[in-house]
């Protein structure tokens, strides 16, 4: 049994070396941004004191705080050079507008964030939306990959759902024009459609993916989804090496439950993105195991892929921390701490596939801390075997 003290010290030493190597690599290699999208999915680390990067942490509502705890525990034991600026932002805090604005400022300043889901509070504007709109975090990326150790109806899934996250049906423009008649506006703009299309194709190219599918309902919403589709088509012409196809969203949902292996990268407007990413997350194991990354011009936010707070289980420590921990691992990679990120991802996957420690959603009865401990033990083993 290795004591946590020595584990921490070992990791600390390990990561001190990594930092030096990373810094040297950065100095010696040329800037790598050939044909990049408007946003680069790999960040320039913002270093603060002592080589540590400051990252905003927003635990959120429901089981969010418990999941955030898992991440902070793991990062502490790994002695990762990341410092969290923790901002409590949940339903109670929302009454104070100041704390919300502070969270936005913090994210702008740090450029990187890790968050849970914030529940809508009755009186205020929908905060998850404000986050994305105010910070212009416009591209949400959810990668759904089958786990060997999770029993699901389908196997061999590896799709990436890219969702435009700032406009569409989520424009929050509603009015009751006449009593009993409500109009809700869905906005699609050429600018944002082109932007997300370009992001999707760049992402596909960067990650060696072969096909991009545009998901739409232009047969019914001829102007709005028609515009989105036309933008995707135009952008696709700049990427002849990547196959492009279009599919109507109802058919997509059907295909996802019949033959999900056919999908590679999917790009879509806001609402369909919400449905498809949740559907796909359900196919590979549920909200507890799917992470996501969201990008804006100068900002990246990492959070679980299926945004559900699971309020009923708040405080009971039964939620699966895998999704949150995987999101934090992707955040490490974004900060160029690739060795740490990859190690953490491998540890989480090994634990899930081994099926010895399973939280309720995976069919077991382990608690959140037990799962976290399992990740840490696996990390220890992996590090020793390197």
């Amino acid at each position: 049994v290795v004591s946590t003290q020595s584990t921490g010290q070992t990791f600390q030493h390990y990561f001190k070396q990594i930092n030096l190597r990373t810094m040297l690599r950065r100095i010696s290699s040329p800037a790598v941004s050939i044909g990049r999208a408007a946003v680069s999915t790999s960040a320039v680390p913002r270093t603060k004191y002592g080589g540590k990067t400051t990252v905003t942490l927003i635990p959120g509502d429901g089981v969010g705080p418990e999941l955030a705890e898992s991440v902070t525990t793991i990062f502490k034991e790994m002695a990762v050079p990341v410092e969290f600026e923790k901002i409590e932002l949940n339903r109670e805090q929302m009454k104070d507008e100041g704390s919300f604005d502070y969270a936005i400022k913090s994210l702008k300043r740090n450029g990187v964030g890790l968050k849970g889901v914030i529940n809508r509070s009755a009186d205020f504007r929908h905060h998850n939306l404000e986050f994305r709109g105010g910070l212009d975090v416009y591209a949400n990326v959810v990668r759904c990959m089958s786990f060997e150790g999770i029993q699901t109806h389908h196997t061999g899934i590896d799709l990436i759902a890219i969702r435009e996250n700032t406009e569409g049906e989520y424009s929050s423009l509603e009015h009751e024009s006449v009593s009993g008649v409500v109009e809700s506006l869905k906005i699609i703009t050429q600018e944002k459609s082109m932007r997300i299309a370009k992001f999707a194709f760049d992402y596909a190219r960067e990650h060696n993916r072969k096909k991009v599918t545009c998901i739409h309902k232009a047969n019914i919403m001829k102007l709005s989804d028609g515009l989105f589709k036309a933008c995707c088509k135009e952008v696709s012409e700049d990427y002849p090496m990547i196959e492009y196809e279009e599919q109507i969203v109802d058919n997509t949902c059907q295909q996802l439950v019949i033959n999900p292996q056919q999908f590679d990268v999917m790009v879509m407007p806001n609402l369909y993105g919400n449905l498809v990413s949740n559907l796909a997350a359900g196919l590979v194991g549920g909200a507890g195991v799917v992470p996501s990354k969201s990008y804006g011009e100068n900002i990246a936010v990492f959070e679980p892929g299926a945004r559900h707070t699971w309020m009923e289980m708040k405080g009971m420590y039964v939620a699966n921390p895998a999704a949150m921990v995987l999101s934090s691992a992707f955040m490490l990679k974004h900060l160029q701490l690739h060795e740490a990120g990859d190690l953490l991802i491998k540890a989480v996957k090994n634990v899930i596939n081994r099926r010895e420690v399973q939280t309720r959603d995976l069919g077991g009865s382990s608690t959140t801390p037990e799962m976290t401990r399992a990740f840490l033990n696996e990390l220890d083993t992996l590090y020793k075997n390197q």
Partner: protein
Amino acid sequence: SSGINAEYGHVSLNLTIRRTFGLYANVRPAKSVPGVITPYSKEGVDCVIMRENTEGEYSGIEHQVVPGVVQSVKLITRDASRNVAEYAFQYAQDHGRKNIVALHKANIMKMSDGMFLEQCREVAARYPEINYREMYLDSACLKIVSDPSKFDVMLMPNLYGDIFSDLTAGLIGGLGLAPSGNMGKDGIAIYEAVHGTADDLVEANKGNPTALLMSGLMMLRHMGLKSQADKIEAAVLETLTERKVITGDIGGTATNPEYADEICRKIRG
């Protein structure tokens, strides 16, 4: 850069029929079909989608505000929401269904989906024996692909209903097996298969009539001809379970008429 021109299309005939007869509720049952094995056959699917059929995102009201900015209007009215809710609860009561869940995104679309939910709740209060809940649409997508057996009757506005009912059709084996009914005022009811025209299968007579047949059975039941409907349904299910005389789309080699003859043979007994 050059302007992007979105395409315009002609007004659909389906839409015209829907509007002419005021078909306000679309009923789409999805039940696992014996003989058609899908990853979900084991736990079994047996749910019904009640979809508002006249408004919502299908209002057809769209305009280009300025070049490059398009807005599409989703219309939700109290009356249409109440009509479909009333039909759903009455259907549930008539068919012995115990649970209704309303699917929505009222966290995002507070006023429109909020109004829809308001009407659902009002109607639910009049049917205390039916268990009524609400669920976010994305949660429902997540949960139904994990365990569809937990879903019974689902009630929702137009767009969600369209997407979700294709999802449930996929769970049972595809649109080729999906029946549907459209309810209008004054007892008008029009039943149709949901799938497309499948022009490539016409000449060789290879189309699968099951969806249309099931739709016909829904019609018979609506007309009160329950025993006849049950008899036909038993014959259809037996034919499908045997898997000897079935059409190509579900793994067989029979033509449309051959499949129909087999069913008739079973009815005659």
